[in-house]
């Protein structure tokens, strides 16, 4: 559906997007992941024909963005970072205007307006002036605007930025819902969002493509699934992490023990076992027999965040982890199961 080859956008001195290539198949949800300033927005703007590429090609549904911009625009629904709303218009007026811009007329337009009002759950504000809507509603009107002409491809630039946790969840659900009918590219710097909504992920940093793969594959690829997280507590209020570490290393089948963190008399370790060896039982027994408490023992699911750190280097990811830490505060996000 979308083919991007060696796409480059160069400004006076620096390259905002540097020779990026990827493909997106029909019906997929693709997460465009990268820290702020990585070139996500620039890439999306080139795909929507807002910016012309310096070199390289991009095509949507077989139409080149430079040669056939009108055909590309007809097949794309775009939600920029800030929803492009006219504050003085009413919601239905606005949707009618956008619908007409996209070439809808008459009864067809009325039908589509009804549909998107319902689909994006904005029917209750349809007669309100857009300037007075809350951020969540604005975002949904923005989404409604993007899907009004039933485009093949939806391009959403940070669709959940600035929303509260409840709204974030609603928006994500909506996007997942839309996936059946449209091919979706969404950009984000929030990792759990990609894990939750996307099937495929494209990671870029500093304008360069770092990785492109399915979310499942990336998680598997980053590390073997044999890691176990162990939290050990000392019984009398003190615990020497080094002693525990040494003890854990002696457990049969353990290949490597990493000290993660320590708080009061509790320490957390990540234990990697040799492949196909069940080490949990032995681990638990070893800890209890040494006179410590076993507070927690669980599989260390590798998050995209860690993959991201590995792929881009800690530099680019500092900001990412700060951002996603923010998000993990909310109970709904499942990023906390690491």
């Amino acid at each position, binding site marked *: 559906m979308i083919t991007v080859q060696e796409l480059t956008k160069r400004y006076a001195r620096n390259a905002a997007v540097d020779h990026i290539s990827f493909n997106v198949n029909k019906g997929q949800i693709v997460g465009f992941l990268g820290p702020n300033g990585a070139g996500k927005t620039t890439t999306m*703007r080139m795909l*929507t*024909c*807002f*910016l*012309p590429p310096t070199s390289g090609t991009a095509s949507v549904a077989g139409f080149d963005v430079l040669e056939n911009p*009108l*055909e590309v*625009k*007809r097949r*794309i629904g*775009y939600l*920029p*970072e*800030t929803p*492009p*709303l*006219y*504050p*003085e*218009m009413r919601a239905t*007026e606005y949707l009618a*205007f*956008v619908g*007409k*811009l*996209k*070439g809808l*007329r008459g009864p067809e337009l009325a039908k589509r307006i009804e549909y998107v009002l319902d689909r994006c759950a904005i029917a209750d504000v349809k007669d309100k002036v857009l300037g007075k809507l809350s951020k969540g509603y604005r975002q949904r009107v923005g989404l409604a*605007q993007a899907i009004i002409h039933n485009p093949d491809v939806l391009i959403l630039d940070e669709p959940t930025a600035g929303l509260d946790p409840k709204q974030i969840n609603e928006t994500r659900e909506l996007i997942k819902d839309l996936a059946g009918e449209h091919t979706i590219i969404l950009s984000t710097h929030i990792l759990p969002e990609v894990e939750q909504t996307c099937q495929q992920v494209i990671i870029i940093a500093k304008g360069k493509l770092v990785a492109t793969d399915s979310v499942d594959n990336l998680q598997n690829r980053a590390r073997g699934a044999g890691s176990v997280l162990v939290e050990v507590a000392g019984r009398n209020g003190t615990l020497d992490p080094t002693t525990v570490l040494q003890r854990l290393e002696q457990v049969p089948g353990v290949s490597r023990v990493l000290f993660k963190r320590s708080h009061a008399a509790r320490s957390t370790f990540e234990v990697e076992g040799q492949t196909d060896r069940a080490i949990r039982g032995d681990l638990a027994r070893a800890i209890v027999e040494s006179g410590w408490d076993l507070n927690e023992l669980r599989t260390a699911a590798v998050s995209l965040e860690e993959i991201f750190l590995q792929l881009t280097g800690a530099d680019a990811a500092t900001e990412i982890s700060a951002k996603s830490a923010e998000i993990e505060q909310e109970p709904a996000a499942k990023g906390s199961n690491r």
Partner: protein
Amino acid sequence: MRNIWVICRKELRSYFVSPIAYLLLGMFAIVFGFFFWNAVGYFVFAGMEAQMRGGMYPMNLNEQVVRPLISNVSVIGLFLIPMITMRLFAEEKRSGTIELLATSPVRDYEIILGKWLAALTLYSCMLLVTALNFVWLFRYGNPDWKPLLIAYLGLLLQAGALLAIGEFISTLTRNQIIAGALTFGVCLLLWVLEWVSDYDSTPWARVMAYLSVLTHFESFAKGLLTVKDATFFVTAIFLGLFLTARSLESLRWRS
């Protein structure tokens, strides 16, 4: 074609939904009303004076009321045109809605023409306000309507040119105040350039005088339709719209 109409309607709607249109129309109505009252009052006074002296002085409604009033309209227009055009693109750029327009399947010229037509329509509404005043001249007097019609055509052409230039300036910035101030400066300059012809007739002065809208508006105000002056305004409209198109295109390469 239909897209031009869609954009034009949207622009008109935002003019008339916000206070802009009513403010401009109201202000214009008051100012022009005063001018009209003044001009007619003076005309009546001069008429009575002429009568007392034995009616030697020839009185002409077109020459003494309509013509100065039309010149006044074009000067007031000078102040109002920046207020009409300053938001056209500057606001779209500031609020990010330009991304919606630029990623919709419409051509640049359709956006530009739609906006320009909307601005011209608003200006025409202001001219309608002046026409309401002139109706009383026809009710109680007997002015010639043909020169008046040509004067109105001249006003529309002049406004079309200045609005096109204002539209171009509006694409240059995302700040409405800057766009408005710049447009006002350019309009004013295009107006007063004619003054050099009063004392200077070197080629440079002649070029400057030629560029002035005043030079070309005078014949319309007199009720003369000349190809030369009409061509000037039509050319200026095309130039303004062409520059707007170029600027819009370059936005994409720059931003």
